[in-house]
């Protein structure tokens, strides 16, 4: 980090906080503090939804993912537009007209108190676990890349987020998200331009795209079906639809974004903007990763991108032969790449095929050396299942990007972390106050009391996230599992809302039992099968709906519930 990088980084962060706090003036009632007085325009909601979803680790991982596995990760988002349309047609008008603060508050109006309590607890468990991870993962990567102490990066991110989230409430969160997304967009565009400019003079942009394709890095669509494969068109369309339905329809961290809309129409536009923009944005990020891969076809990358681990295994006896194999593999790959570009320029198809085969043979040698190095890291006391994917992009940025751009990209990482984390903390506080505190602990207190309680709850969840992030390293490989744990709860929440919106006759008890059965089914799939986690949402939702319908229509108390009679509760038409 040079002086110019520091100026860019500090200016970005200070302006984000200052602007967020400036726009949040007057957040002195519960309605304004938690829902911005339902005054937000669609574009602010749209960017806030996008910013909350795109955490820093998504940004860092996505480029790395493309580097090692190509662009097929983009298929994961194919279900998003479908999910957005379903949510716009069902959840948005129902939540708006029910005048709720949280998605789970609606469940009490539709079912009963115990269903609301169970859904709220599931959300608090799931989102509470990931709140720490949202800060921990990028803090860890930044500390390794920049050489800063891990606790410093964690504290810097956590303190910044807590400051503006506690003081400004959701308005500060939303307007900060807008700025953060602008910085992220700018950082992405500048990164791509810089990568292309850094390519050798003899390699045109067209050549770079051709090489990325020949290397198998432009595999945006895979039509082969496989239950265990996370990223193909089928898991994206079906599993992805259910995942995004769960996320945008049942997760308060997202629902709260569009509840702030000044009308149903504005909330719908905010969501539909994401339906249109999200896939191209992910494609763009993945494309940057593919271009970084092409860059490293000409400039030798390190054997491992995690420099600390690389330095640790270097004295090991097995290291030198590994490094020699890697160096030879790289040189062979570079020669094959240059010959491939030449054949491509001359339009010689036969030579292209020959050189592509040689390229792939050399790539295998490189992959083998990298795999062996990763195993060496594990054997010499490193992390189990070690992978350096998350370090690829930032390692490239800090080594090759010019002064100022590095600061901008680091600001992007900070911005993405803060936007995702502030949304989580804010929604956790909202559920804690609205669904637990105001409902079960202190009923009928003044508005001022609940605003104050909301600020304290925000502070609590912020500190909790920072402390959890601080313990991240001690948790070791468990921290990886936490990411999967998040997906263990969505299916049953989704099933619950499908019943609420689509099945008038199903009552609270049937839904409650259905949710428990759904959780049992998801945990069974997690523990005893290899089914990709993208399918857990489909499974959980199906079991909840099936069980609740069976209880309603086949059970002894085969009677319609009282939900439809609840005053003011809208029913789907």
């Amino acid at each position, binding site marked *: 980090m040079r002086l110019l990088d520091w100026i860019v980084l500090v200016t970005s962060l200070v302006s984000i906080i200052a602007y967020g706090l400036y726009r949040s003036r007057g957040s002195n*009632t*519960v*309605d304004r503090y938690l*829902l911005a*007085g*339902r005054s937000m325009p669609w574009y602010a909601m749209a960017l806030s939804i996008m910013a909350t979803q795109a955490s820093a680790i998504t940004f860092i991982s996505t480029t790395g993912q493309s580097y090692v596995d190509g662009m097929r990760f*983009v298929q994961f988002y*194919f279900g998003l*537009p*479908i999910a*957005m*349309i379903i949510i*716009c*047609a069902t959840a948005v*008008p129902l939540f*708006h*007209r029910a*005048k709720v603060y949280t998605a789970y508050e609606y469940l009490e109006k539709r079912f009963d108190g115990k269903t609301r309590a169970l859904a709220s607890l599931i959300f608090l468990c799931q989102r509470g676990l990931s709140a720490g991870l949202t800060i921990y993962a990028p803090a860890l990567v930044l500390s390794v890349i920049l050489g800063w102490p891990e606790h410093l990066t964690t504290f810097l991110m956590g303190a910044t987020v807590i400051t503006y989230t506690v003081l400004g409430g959701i308005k500060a969160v939303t307007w900060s998200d807008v700025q953060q997304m602008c910085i992220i967009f700018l950082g992405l565009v500048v990164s791509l331009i810089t990568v292309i400019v850094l390519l050798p003079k003899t390699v045109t942009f067209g050549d770079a*795209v*051709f090489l*990325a*394709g*020949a290397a*198998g890095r*432009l*595999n*945006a*669509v895979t*039509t082969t079906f496989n239950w265990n494969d996370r990223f193909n*068109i089928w898991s994206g369309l079906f599993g992805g639809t259910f995942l995004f339905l769960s996320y945008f329809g049942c997760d308060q961290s997202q629902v709260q974004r569009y509840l702030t809309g*000044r*009308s*149903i*129409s504005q909330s*719908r*536009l905010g969501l*539909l903007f994401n*339906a*249109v923009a999200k*896939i*191209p944005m992910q*494609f763009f990020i993945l494309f940057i990763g593919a271009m970084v891969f092409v860059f490293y076809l000409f400039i030798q990358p390190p054997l491992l991108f995690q420099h600390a681990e690389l330095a640790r295994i270097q004295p090991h006896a097995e290291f030198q032969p590994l490094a020699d194999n890697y160096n030879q593999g790289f040189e062979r790959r570079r020669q094959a790449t240059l010959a491939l570009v030449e054949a491509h320029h001359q339009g010689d198809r036969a030579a292209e095929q020959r050189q592509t085969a040689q390229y792939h043979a050399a790539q295998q040698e490189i992959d083998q050396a990298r795999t062996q190095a990763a195993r060496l890291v594990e054997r010499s006391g490193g992390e189990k299942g070690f992978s350096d994917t998350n370090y690829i992009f930032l390692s490239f940025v800090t080594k090759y990007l010019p002064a100022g751009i590095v600061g901008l990209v680091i600001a992007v990482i900070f911005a993405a972390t803060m936007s995702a984390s502030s949304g989580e903390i804010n929604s956790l506080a909202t559920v804690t106050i609205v669904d637990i505190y105001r409902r079960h602990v202190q009923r009928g207190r003044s*508005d001022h009391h*609940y605003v104050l309680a909301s600020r304290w709850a925000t502070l609590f969840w912020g500190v909790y996230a920072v402390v959890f992030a601080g313990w991240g390293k001690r948790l070791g490989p468990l921290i990886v599992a936490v990411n999967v744990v998040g997906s263990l709860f969505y299916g049953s929440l989704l099933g619950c809302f499908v019943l609420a919106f689509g099945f008038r006759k199903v009552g609270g008890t049937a839904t409650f039992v259905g949710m428990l059965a759904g959780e049992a089914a998801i945990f069974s799939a997690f523990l005893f099968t290899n089914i990709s986690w993208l399918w857990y949402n489909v499974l959980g939702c199906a079991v909840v709906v099936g069980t609740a319908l069976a209880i309603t229509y086949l059970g002894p108390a085969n009677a319609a519930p009282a939900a439809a009679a609840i005053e003011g509760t809208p029913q789907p038409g």
Partner: protein
Amino acid sequence: MSDRPQDPDEPPPFLGTWRRVYTAILIYLCLIIGGFYLFTRAYR
């Protein structure tokens, strides 16, 4: 506790009805998947 305004279900600012907007987005999704498929085939 609430000073929120009413929530009128306004028509979208373009295409006239929400149903048409949703249909346009589904067509857009089909086009984008088709485009990505052609992109994959062109550069493999």
